[in-house]
């Protein structure tokens, strides 16, 4: 009789320890955590708030500057890595659910939470391949040129008042400049690989950069104009006072500018529908086709760091930054929550919309988005001009408008939550029986 036995997988050394810990303790511990999920969640929030309070009152003012700098840089590096690790796992789960799959489920026993860690281990062990025809120094340099600027962008992003590595008058421009250098790393990778797929990816990235960069800057400029500062901390502080004080709702031009910025930022992160430089179905993997092992990981980290950075910019400039939408104290936790929401929307968009062609990207960005953002910029300037010595009629309109737009925003948010609730209530119908029955707790 023929029996099939799955050959036992042999893990050695460090990977064995990690896999054991992940499966065994993850398998016991995580269901236990889930049983008390709400308690754990509340405890985590309390711990985070306590941590924030501790840093704000003791660690930040009392440490000498070089110790503080060192601590903050290491912390930011860890933050970028955590964003990438959770982001990659989250992306795979989100894509799975959107496509009626489960996504990673095995590693770490609970919803595949250790999948990114396992992937990281695998990547470290992979052979480090460099094609014989590649331009070797540039090929080696490219991943660093992609990852390091993406990390540098975080040096100027404030997570709250005083929660920033360096205050600068031009921190907004600094972040944009760093995100622009990241593109050079991508183009360098594509060129140095000396493969047609990579070169196509790099050329598409170049085309895309010249199309999206100006609309992106112009839509941010409309917001900068109404605050009068390029300092991200000041931009965030200008919106203190809850939902209706957010810059997004201050005038109709800014409301539109948020969406144009978001579209352009999708292109800047190479996210669908603008993921042409990667274009898995056409270009194998685009600019990083020839990369393997850890260099490949660095491109991935750069992408997720960039995603969070552009979401953080949108949060600070349009969505009130670290201010609470419901009143109450502002906190870096609000900033994290809003940015994470925007990152999730990026994933949602990616797995919902099909990819468009490069000529369509350029057409959309240069022929439609650019004139539209110019119009928004001019409109916003005129709004500023009329708002300062305002005609009484205009003044009352300007005072009422944030409430109208804010209500529109509330409606949109309500629609989103209604959709999510509807989907959850009819989850059997939407996800399908098979996927549903395999979920834990079914």
């Amino acid at each position, binding site marked *: 009789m023929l029996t099939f036995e799955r050959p036992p997988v042999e893990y050695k050394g460090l990977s064995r320890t990690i896999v054991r810990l992940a499966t065994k303790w993850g398998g016991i511990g995580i269901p236990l955590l889930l049983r008390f999920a709400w308690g754990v969640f509340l405890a985590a929030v309390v711990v985070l708030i306590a941590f924030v309070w501790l840093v704000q009152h003791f660690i930040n003012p009392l440490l000498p500057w070089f110790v503080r700098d060192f601590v903050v840089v290491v912390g930011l590096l860890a933050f970028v890595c955590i964003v990438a690790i959770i982001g990659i796992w989250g992306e795979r789960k989100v894509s799975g659910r959107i496509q009626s799959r489960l996504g990673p489920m095995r590693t770490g026993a609970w919803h595949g939470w250790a999948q990114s860690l396992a992937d990281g281990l695998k990547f470290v062990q992979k052979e480090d391949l460099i094609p014989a025809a590649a331009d070797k120094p*540039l090929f080696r340099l490219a991943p660093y040129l992609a990852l390091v600027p993406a990390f540098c962008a975080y040096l100027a992003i404030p997570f709250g008042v005083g929660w920033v590595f360096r205050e600068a008058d031009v921190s907004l*421009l600094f972040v944009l400049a760093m995100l622009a250098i990241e593109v*050079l790393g991508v183009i360098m990778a594509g060129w140095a690989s000396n493969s047609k797929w990579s070169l196509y990816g790099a050329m598409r990235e170049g085309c895309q950069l010249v199309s999206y*960069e100006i609309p992106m800057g112009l839509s941010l400029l409309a917001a900068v104009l109404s605050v009068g500062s390029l300092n991200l901390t000041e931009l965030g502080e200008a919106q203190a006072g809850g939902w209706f004080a957010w810059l997004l709702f201050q005038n109709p031009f800014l409301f539109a500018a948020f969406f144009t910025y978001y579209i352009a930022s999708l292109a800047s992160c190479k996210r669908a529908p603008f993921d042409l430089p990667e274009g898995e179905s056409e270009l194998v993997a685009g600019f990083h086709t020839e990369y393997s092992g850890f260099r490949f990981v660095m491109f991935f980290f750069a992408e997720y760091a960039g995603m969070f950075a552009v979401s953080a910019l949108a949060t600070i400039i349009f969505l009130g930054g670290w201010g609470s939408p419901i009143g109450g104290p502002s906190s870096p936790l609000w900033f994290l929550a809003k940015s994470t929401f925007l990152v999730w929307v990026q994933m949602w968009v990616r797995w919902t919309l099909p990819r468009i062609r490069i000529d369509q990207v350029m057409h959309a960005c240069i022929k439609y988005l650019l004139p539209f953002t110019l119009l928004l910029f001019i409109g916003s300037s005129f709004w500023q001009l009329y708002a300062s010595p305002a005609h009484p009629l205009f003044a009352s309109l300007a005072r009422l408008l944030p409430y109208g737009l804010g209500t529109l925003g509330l409606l949109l948010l309500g629609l989103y939550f209604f959709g999510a609730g509807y989907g959850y209530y009819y989850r059997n119908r939407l996800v399908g029986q098979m996927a549903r029955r395999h979920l834990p707790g079914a």
Partner: protein
Amino acid sequence: MLETMIFVLFAGLAVVAGIAILLSTSIVRMAYWLITMLVAVAGLYFLMGAYFLGVMQILVYVGGVAVLLVFGVMLTSRQLAPTLRPGRAEALWLAAVAAVLLVGLVLSILHAHWQPGTIVPANSAAEIGHSLLGEFLGPFELVSVLLLVAMLGAAYLARPKAPTAGPQHIKETTVL
């Protein structure tokens, strides 16, 4: 002390990158050395407290111009790429021009009245804006006219050469 060290670091990087631009033969390598030099100069601007200028240097030159440069080079074939070696007569002319420029630069550096001063960070964005739209409004507008002319020229050169017959032309759009 620290400032001198950082200055030497960035200035040395700029000089090394500048020499490397001259010595490398591949255009793409040249472009990347150029980017290195521009970033080093931006670092010098940062050191002098001109944050706005430094950031603009990175944003415009590195993020815009250099990307276009590399992009343009990538469109040319790698096999057909010219090896950039000047001929003998060219080299003579170039040496003459370079010597004149060098002498002029050295003389102007020697004759400048250098005065040591402290670095004062300025609210540079606002000041640059005020002087551009106040004192230097004329030159500013002239430059924008120049850019417009350059753009028109580029559009004229890049126009479709032969008159094409309507819809057939659209199908020929290159899809990268």
